[in-house]
C-alpha cells in the first residue's frame, strides 16, 4: 500500500477492483466503511462476482475475470476526454510532459510495442526511452555512441535514460507521454470496454463518471483511492493492471495523498515482509537487485543497479536509489562481517549470481525436470497452492528429499499419499520426506510487516505443545550442522557457509530481537551526522538508513528496515496509539518503513509551493520559516529541498516524477499497459485478434502443462478466490471455521444452472484441460451470465480452501480435489505470479 489501512478513512472515492477486502481483509475494510459513514465517500466495486464487498458498494459492475486493463484503460480515456485530470500534478509530478524518443511505437495495429522479437518472445526495449533534451527541453538528436562489445562476451551496456530529458509543458507534442497516453487509450471506448469486459456501456460510463468526479472542474481537494489485491496480480498481465491503476491515479493526482494512493492489500500476514526481506529469488533484502553473472565485480554490480538522475534540466531529482552501494555494502557486511572487506570486494563472490528465472512455477518446473533435488517447505503448501497441483505432485515424486516445517498435516508433506496414488506407486516414490513440527504464531515472537508497511512486534504467549521447535531454531540448527560438516569436509566452495556471521547469543536458537537488531544495522566506528551533529559510538545501532556507508563501516541486514531497532530500543514494539492529526497516521505505533513514513510520496499531497492540496488533510508541508518540510507524517522527501528547486516527489525514480510512461526495462511487456486476454480466454482479443495474449508470456512444455481453448469445449471462465470464513489451506484444520463453511462449493450463475437443470447443493464437476474439481453447486444471482464480444459467456467461481488433508477431508466430506488441479502453469512476465484467475473450464453434473 502506498497509504495505510487507517488512511482509507480519509478518502472520498473508492474503486475496489481485483480485491474483495470485505471478505479477505474485513478489519482493514472498516476504514472504507468509516469513509462512507463519515465522509459520504462513494464505493465502486468491479469484480467478476457480486461479493460481500459489493454488498455495501454504491455501484457494482460485474467484469469478466482478466478484463481489468480494458476497464481501467477506458476510465483513463474517459478522464482525458472529460478533462477530469489533475493538470498541475500531472505536469509537475509525473512524466506526462516528457518527450519519448522517435522510434517508439504503440501497439495499436498489431498488438505489440516497438522492438518485439517474435522468435524469442521478448522486447528489445531501447526505443522505450525518453528523448534527450537541451536546456529548454527541446529534443536533441541522439548521439550515435559506438557500442563497444566487450571481448569477454558480456552483453553490451544496457541503454540508459538520458540525463536531461526533453519535455513539452504544453502537452501538445505528439510524442509527449500525455499525447501517447491519450492515443494509446483512445481505442478503449465504452463500446470496446463493453465488448471486452462484459460491463454494459452505460454502466461503465456511470462508474467512470463517478470515479473521475473527484476532479470535476479541476478541483484538487478530493482524493480517490484504488484498492486491489491478488485479483489483479493473478494474471499474465497482472503487473500491468496495477500499473494502469497507478497511471490513472497519477492522472487524477491521487498518489501521495491522504485518502488516495494505489493500495495493494497483501493476502497474508507477512508476505509484505517476505518481499521486503527478499524471501524471493530476484531480490536481496530491501529490493536490491540480485547480481547476475555479468556483474563480474561488486563495482560492476553496483554500477548496473545504481541509477543516475534523468529529468528535465531545470528540475531536481533526489534519485534515492543513487545510494544503492551504501545499502549493498552494508548488507554484505551484515552477511559476512569481517570476512567482507574492500579488498575482497565485500565478499561479493559469496553471493549466488542469478540470470535465470527461479521463481515459483519455474521452481516446480525445475523439480519436475530433475534439476531441483531437495526442497524446504516451511509453512508453504506448494501442492495446494499450485498452480497445477498435479504437476507439483509429479515434481515432488522426482525430488530426492523434502523437508516440511508445519503445524498441521498438509497436502505437500503427504503428496506421496495424495488421492489416486496406489500402494504400489507409493512404494516406487523415492522421495524422503521429513515433517518437522513447528511453532504456531502464538508461540513465537518477532515482527510481521503488514500491508501498510508497519512492522509490529508480537510476543510469545505460551509454550509450544509436544515436541515442537521454533522455526528459527530449526533453521539455525540445520545451518550449524551443515557448517560443521563443511568444517570437517570442505566440499564445494565452503567459504560463504563457514564465514557467514552467526554470532547470536544462542546460535542454535537465535533471539529474534537480536536478529532484528542485526537487520536494523550498526556502525563499526564512531560516526557523526554532519547536519544534526548527532554522534554514534562504534557498535551502536544506526538510527536510520541515511547513516549507512559504502566504506564498510556500517552493517545493515535490510536498509529499508533500518531505523526499526535503534539505540532507542525496539521501535516495532511501540504502542502509542495517539493520532494528533486525526488522519490515522499513528506515528508512534510500531514502526513503518521507510523511516517511519506512513504515506509514501507524501510530498505529492502538496502543490508546487508546498501547501497541501486540501488544507483539511494536512500530511506534510513546506515550512517557510524553518526552510524545512515538516508535517504530521514523516516527509517522504529531502527535508530541505525548497519547492522552487522543483525536486520531484517520487524520489525513488531517477526522474523524480511518477511514471505514466515506464521507460526501458522497467517492464517486460510494454511501457503502457495494453489489454491482453488471459492465456486461456473465451474470445480473441477484440483490440487485435492476431495478438490475443501477452506477447512475452511463455508456456511451459512438460507433459503436465496443457492449455485449454474454447474449441476443445472449455468455454466457461473460472476464477478462484478465498472466503472470509477460511484462510487459505490452514483453517480447514480449525473446527470453528469448518463449521462456518463445511464443504467446498462452486458458485455458478442461475442461468447456467437452469440450462443444466441443476439445483443448488447438487454436485458438479468442473474440468480444465489439466484436471477436475468436484464440489456442490451454489446457484446464485450474484454471478450473472455475460455478453463477451457479443457471445453469451458464463463465469464461475471456486473458493480454494480444500485439499486432501483437513477436518472435512479426513471425515470424507469432500471429493479431495484441490482447486488448483485446474489452474494453469503460466505467469506474469514481470512479477512471475501465476494466472490463478480467468482460466477456462467446462462444467458438468457429477
Amino acid at each position, binding site marked *: 500500500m502506498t497509504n495505510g489501512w487507517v488512511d482509507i478513512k480519509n478518502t472520498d472515492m473508492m474503486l475496489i477492483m481485483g480485491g474483495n477486502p470485505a471478505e479477505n481483509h474485513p478489519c*482493514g475494510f472498516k476504514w472504507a466503511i468509516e469513509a462512507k459513514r463519515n465522509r459520504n465517500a462513494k464505493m465502486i466495486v468491479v469484480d467478476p462476482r457480486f461479493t460481500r464487498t459489493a454488498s455495501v458498494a454504491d455501484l457494482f459492475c460485474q467484469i469478466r475475470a482478466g478484463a481489468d486493463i480494458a476497464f481501467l484503460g477506458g476510465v483513463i480515456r474517459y478522464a482525458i476526454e472529460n478533462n477530469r485530470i489533475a493538470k498541475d500534478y500531472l505536469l509537475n509530478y509525473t512524466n506526462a510532459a516528457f518527450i519519448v524518443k522517435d522510434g517508439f511505437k504503440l501497439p495499436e495495429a498489431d498488438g505489440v510495442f516497438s522492438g518485439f522479437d517474435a522468435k524469442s518472445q521478448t522486447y528489445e526495449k531501447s526505443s522505450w526511452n525518453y528523448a534527450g533534451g537541451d536546456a529548454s527541453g527541446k529534443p536533441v538528436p541522439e548521439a550515435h555512441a559506438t557500442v563497444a562489445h566487450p571481448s569477454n562476451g558480456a552483453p553490451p551496456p544496457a541503454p540508459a535514460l538520458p540525463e536531461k530529458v526533453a519535455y513539452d509543458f504544453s502537452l501538445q507534442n505528439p510524442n509527449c507521454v500525455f499525447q501517447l497516453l491519450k492515443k494509446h487509450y483512445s481505442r478503449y471506448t465504452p463500446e470496446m470496454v463493453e465488448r471486452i469486459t462484459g460491463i454494459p456501456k452505460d454502466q461503465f460510463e456511470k462508474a467512470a463518471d463517478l470515479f473521475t468526479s473527484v476532479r470535476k472542474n479541476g478541483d484538487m481537494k478530493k482524493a480517490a483511492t484504488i484498492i486491489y489485491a491478488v485479483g489483479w496480480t493473478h494474471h499474465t498481465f497482472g503487473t500491468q493492471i496495477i500499473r494502469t491503476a497507478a497511471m490513472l491515479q497519477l492522472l487524477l493526482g491521487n498518489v501521495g495523498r491522504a485518502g488516495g494512493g494505489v493500495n495493494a492489500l497483501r493476502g497474508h500476514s*507477512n508476505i509484505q515482509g517476505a518481499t521486503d526481506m527478499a524471501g524471493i529469488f530476484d531480490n536481496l533484502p530491501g529490493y536490491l537487485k540480485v547480481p547476475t553473472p555479468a556483474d563480474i565485480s561488486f563495482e560492476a554490480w553496483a554500477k548496473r543497479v545504481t541509477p543516475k538522475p534523468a529529468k528535465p534540466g531545470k528540475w531536481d531529482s533526489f534519485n534515492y536509489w543513487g545510494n544503492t552501494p551504501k545499502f549493498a555494502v552494508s548488507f554484505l557486511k551484515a552477511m559476512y562481517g569481517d570476512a567482507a572487506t574492500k579488498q575482497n570486494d565485500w565478499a561479493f563472490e559469496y553471493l549466488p549470481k542469478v540470470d535465470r528465472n527461479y521463481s515459483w512455477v519455474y521452481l516446480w518446473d525445475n523439480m519436475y525436470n530433475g534439476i531441483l533435488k531437495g526442497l524446504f517447505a516451511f509453512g508453504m503448501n506448494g501442492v495446494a497452492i499450485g498452480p497445477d497441483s498435479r504437476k507439483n505432485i509429479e515434481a515432488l515424486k522426482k525430488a530426492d528429499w523434502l523437508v516440511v516445517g508445519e503445524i498441521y498435516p498438509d497436502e505437500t508433506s503427504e503428496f506421496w499419499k495424495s488421492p489416486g496414488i496406489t500402494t504400489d506407486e507409493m512404494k516406487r516414490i523415492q522421495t524422503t520426506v521429513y515433517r518437522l513440527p513447528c511453532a504456531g504464531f502464538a508461540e513465537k515472537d518477532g515482527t510481521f510487516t503488514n500491508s501498510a508497511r508497519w512492522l509490529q512486534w508480537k510476543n510469545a504467549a505460551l509454550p509450544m505443545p509436544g515436541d515442537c521447535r521454533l522455526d528459527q531454531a530449526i533453521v539455525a540448527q540445520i545451518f550449524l550442522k551443515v557448517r560443521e560438516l563443511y568444517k570437517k569436509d570442505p566440499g564445494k566452495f565452503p567459504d560463504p557457509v563457514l564465514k557467514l556471521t552467526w554470532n547470536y547469543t544462542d546460535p542454535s536458537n537465535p533471539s529474534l530481537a537480536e536478529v532484528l537488531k542485526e537487520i536494523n544495522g550498526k556502525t563499526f566506528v564512531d560516526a557523526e551526522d554532519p547536519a544534526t551533529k548527532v554522534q554514534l559510538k562504534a557498535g551502536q545501532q544506526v538510527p536510520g538508513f541515511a547513516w549507512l556507508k559504502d566504506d564498510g563501516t556500517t552493517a545493515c541486514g535490510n536498509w529499508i528496515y533500518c531505523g526499526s531497532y535503534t539505540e532507542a530500543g525496539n521501535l516495532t514494539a511501540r504502542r502509542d496509539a495517539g493520532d494528533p492529526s486525526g488522519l490515522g497516521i499513528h506515528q508512534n505505533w510500531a514502526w513503518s518503513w521507510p523511516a517511519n513514513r506512513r504515506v509514501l510520496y507524501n510530498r505529492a499531497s502538496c502543490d508546487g509551493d508546498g501547501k497541501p492540496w486540501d488544507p483539511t488533510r494536512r500530511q506534510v508541508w513546506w515550512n517557510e520559516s524553518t526552510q524545512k518540510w515538516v508535517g504530521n507524517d514523516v516527509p517522504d522527501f529531502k527535508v530541505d529541498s525548497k519547492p522552487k528547486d522543483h525536486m520531484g516527489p517520487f524520489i525513488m525514480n531517477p526522474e523524480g516524477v511518477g511514471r505514466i510512461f515506464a521507460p526501458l526495462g522497467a517492464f517486460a511487456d510494454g511501457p503502457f499497459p495494453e489489454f491482453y486476454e488471459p492465456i486461456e480466454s473465451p474470445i480473441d482479443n477484440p483490440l487485435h485478434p492476431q495478438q490475443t495474449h501477452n506477447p512475452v508470456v511463455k508456456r511451459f512444455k512438460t507433459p503436465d502443462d496443457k492449455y485449454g481453448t474454447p474449441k476443445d469445449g472449455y468455454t466457461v471462465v473460472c476464477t478462484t478466490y478465498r472466503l472470509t470464513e477460511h484462510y487459505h489451506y490452514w483453517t480447514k484444520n480449525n473446527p470453528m*471455521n469448518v463449521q462456518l463453511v463445511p464443504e467446498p462449493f462452486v458458485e455458478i450463475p442461475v442461468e447456467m444452472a437452469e440450462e443444466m437443470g441443476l439445483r443448488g447443493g447438487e454436485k458438479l464437476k468442473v474440468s480444465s484441460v489439466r484436471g477436475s474439481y468436484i464440489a456442490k453447486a451454489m446457484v446464485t444471482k450474484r454471478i450473472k451470465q455475460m455478453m463477451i464480444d457479443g457471445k453469451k459467456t458464463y463465469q464461475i467461481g471456486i473458493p480454494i480452501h480444500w485439499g486432501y488433508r483437513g477436518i472435512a477431508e479426513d471425515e470424507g466430506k469432500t471429493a479431495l480435489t484441490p482447486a488448483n488441479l485446474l489452474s494453469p502453469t503460466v505467469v506474469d512476465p514481470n512479477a512471475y505470479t501465476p494466472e490463478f484467475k480467468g482460466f477456462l473450464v467446462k462444467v458438468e453434473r457429477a
Partner: protein
Amino acid sequence: MNPTRRDFFKITTVGGAAAAVFGFDLKPAFAQLRTLKIARASETRSTCPYCSVSCGVIIYTIGDRAKNVTPQVVHVEGDPDHPINRGTLCPKGASLEQDILNERRLLKPQVRRPGGTDWEDISWDDALNEIAAKVKKTRDDTFIERDAAGHTVNRCESIAWTGGCTDTNEFNYLVVKSMRALGVVHLENQARV
C-alpha cells in the same frame, strides 16, 4: 469473584419454610452468576497471523505467569488499542483460540522413507543430522561455480527454499542469510503467489 460482592438477588420463594421439611432447596437463585472468564488471565499482545491487516490480538492464558503454571490459552480477542483493528477481528481472527488449541497440531518429527507407505517417528537429532547431510551432499554434487560463459555464479540450483506467509521478518532474514550462503537460488515465498 465473590458472588456476595456482586449483590445479585437471591430470593426465598413461598414455601421456603417447607425446605427443611421436604429436604428440597426452595430458594432458586434468580440470577446465576456467570463469571468473566478472563478476569485474572494473563494478557499477551500478539499479531493475528492471517491477512495483511495485522490486527492486534490479545491472547488470554490461564495463570498469572507464576513459575508453577503452564500457560494454556483460554481466549483470544482483538486488541482495542490497536489503531487498525481497534479490538475488532474477522471470523478467522476470532477463532484463533482453536488454531492454538488444535488437536490436529503436529507434535513430533516424522519421516517418510523412500518407498515408505507411512510416517515413521524420528528424533530431532536424527532428523536434523540427516537433513544436514542431504543438504551438503546435494550442494556438493551440483554446485555450479562458473556458468558456460565462464562467469562466476557460485550457485546451488538443486536446493530450494519455499517460505510461508506467516514467517516473521527475523526468521526470513535468517533464511535469506543461510540459504544465500549455501548458494540457493530457488528461494521463493508465498509473497509471489
